[in-house]
């Protein structure tokens, strides 16, 4: 077990290292000068050089790369081209905002999806089953930002039940703190993006649980349990559902990764000030230090999610061998 943990952690770190390296060289080597927005080509050459030196861009590429890696380890993401303040200070709140939106909706979506999927498979062949499969597939096929727009159109504009976007009402909380995350105003803003995310994320666990259950129900041990006279409810919850959970656990890291990466679109629709929206805005402003930092943090979340689910899976399934 310990070796398994060490190996997985090592892989996760390797993945992050490769990603940050790719990021570094992508910005330096691809066409388009990312520094053009701060270091105007119209400046005197002397002034350009001075600015370059200030950002450390006058050094050889490899030395820049080493400095970049050292700074990453020290969580120093440089200075925003836009606000001219340290990126690290601006990004912490964004990270929390993304997590409070994504994590709870993922958990709820997984729970509902797994449960409904199991129920529908248990009573297989019902009209409800066909309808739910169609709805779930259609939802999965819908661009989530469009779903968000429809939700705003209907619930916010027509019915005036929820705010159109943002995380709290303007001016309510000048500074993000615990009080803000506990306020009713915040929950009111959270409700709609939360529901849209649940509706969207629900499909995958639902469809997967249903098909796994359908094959589990055909297994011999279910038949055996029936013959032994185990009550139906107990067969459903203890024998069938439990054993059908494993594929859900294996796919969780991938789905978590999608959800975090997909936060880019959902945050944009709802003007939710998380990492995804920050990244999109920063790309629009050519604020590359912020783009880099936001991307890497999203990558850290994805990789950490994978690692977590891998370990969880190792604990859940004793058949896994730790080699």
């Amino acid at each position, binding site marked *: 077990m310990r070796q398994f943990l060490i190996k997985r952690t090592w892989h996760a770190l390797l993945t992050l290292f490769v990603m940050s390296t790719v990021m570094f060289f992508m910005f330096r080597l691809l066409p388009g000068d990312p520094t053009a927005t701060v270091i105007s080509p119209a400046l005197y050459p002397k002034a350009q050089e001075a600015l370059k030196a200030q950002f450390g861009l006058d050094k050889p590429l490899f030395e820049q790369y080493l400095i970049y890696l050292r700074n990453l380890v020290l969580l120093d993401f440089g200075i925003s081209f836009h606000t001219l303040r340290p990126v690290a200070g601006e990004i912490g709140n964004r990270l929390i905002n993304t997590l409070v939106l994504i994590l709870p909706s993922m958990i709820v979506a997984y729970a509902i999806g797994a449960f409904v999927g199991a129920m529908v498979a248990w009573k297989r062949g019902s009209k409800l089953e066909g309808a739910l499969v169609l709805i779930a597939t259609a939802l999965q096929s819908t661009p989530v930002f469009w779903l968000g727009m429809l939700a705003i159109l209907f619930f916010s504009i027509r019915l005036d039940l929820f705010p159109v976007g943002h995380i709290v009402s303007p001016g309510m909380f000048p500074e993000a703190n615990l009080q803000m995350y506990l306020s009713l105003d915040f929950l009111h803003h959270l409700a709609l993006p939360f529901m849209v995310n649940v509706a969207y994320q629900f499909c995958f666990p639902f469809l997967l649980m249903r098909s796994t259950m359908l094959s589990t129900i055909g297994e011999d041990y279910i038949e055996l349990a029936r013959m032994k006279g185990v009550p139906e409810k107990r067969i459903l919850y203890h024998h069938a559902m439990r054993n059908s959970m494993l594929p859900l656990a294996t796919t969780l890291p991938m789905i978590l990764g999608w959800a975090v990466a997909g936060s880019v679109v959902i945050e944009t629709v709802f003007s939710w000030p998380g990492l995804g929206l920050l990244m999109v805005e920063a790309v629009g402003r050519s604020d590359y230090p912020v783009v880099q930092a936001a991307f890497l943090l999203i990558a850290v979340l994805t*990789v950490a999610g994978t690692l977590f689910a891998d370990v969880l899976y190792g604990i859940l399934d004793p058949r896994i061998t730790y080699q």
Partner: protein
Amino acid sequence: MLRSLSKFFAIIWQSPSGRVSLVICGICVGIAVFGPLLAPYGPTERIYDDAGKLVRLSPPTLDHWLGTTLLGRDVMSQMLWGARPALIIGVLTALGTVIIGVNIGLLAGYLGGHVDNFLMRLTDIFLGLPFLPFIIVLLSLTGQNIWTIIFAMMIVMWRSTARIVRAEVLSLRERQFIAAAKTTGASDFDIIYKEIAPNIMPFALVGVTFALAWAIITEASIGFLGFGDPNVVSWGTIIYDAYASQMMYRAPWWVVPPGIAIMILVTSVYFIGRAYEEVVNPRIKQAG
């Protein structure tokens, strides 16, 4: 190749949901091919009324079945023009994705050892890569046109196909016909591409359908985030235009149709993939 394709359609045609889905996809392909001929206006043509005034944000009327946009463009025409880029980008991305994925899976699974280790580590790294954020960064650096969009999606999406194909090759490798081919002195290249590859075809086709579904949605998302090809009207960029103009909530006729079109098309692609998968390989569950 052709035989597997005709078998592919025959299998799907057997299931009712597959049949409906095939018809829907056929209609979409028809719109992609002939849509521009049927469209009453150009995709970016501005429409003026008799008095010479721009027809802005008109709700659906007999002249404009789906209304007009803020810039006085006919939504119906845009929808007909927009199918083509959505499908071209989707199909090319799906094919490219699967070609890369199948090759990497074949090489890793057959050659094993260090090659396998390296390729699978690479696949893991790509699996950890945040999909949309990476594509956005890439597009912001390479510029945005149809080809960079296809390229950006392709170099990330091959990862799931590679994994599935590798797993299958691992078991095929131990079969007798491979050993037989080896004793006749067939080269590794011949064994991989003449003996193993044909057996991978069903997986490749399932991969193509799921990649197609995913690529169409992603193309729309890229368009929505404002990173689409600025010179091309696709279903995704119609939604983006509505969003960017901030008129989307006043003009539902503008945002609703492209979303529905994407939803219907992708749903039917999913059902095709599933109908085929259920018959060819009841075991595997592919996610994306």
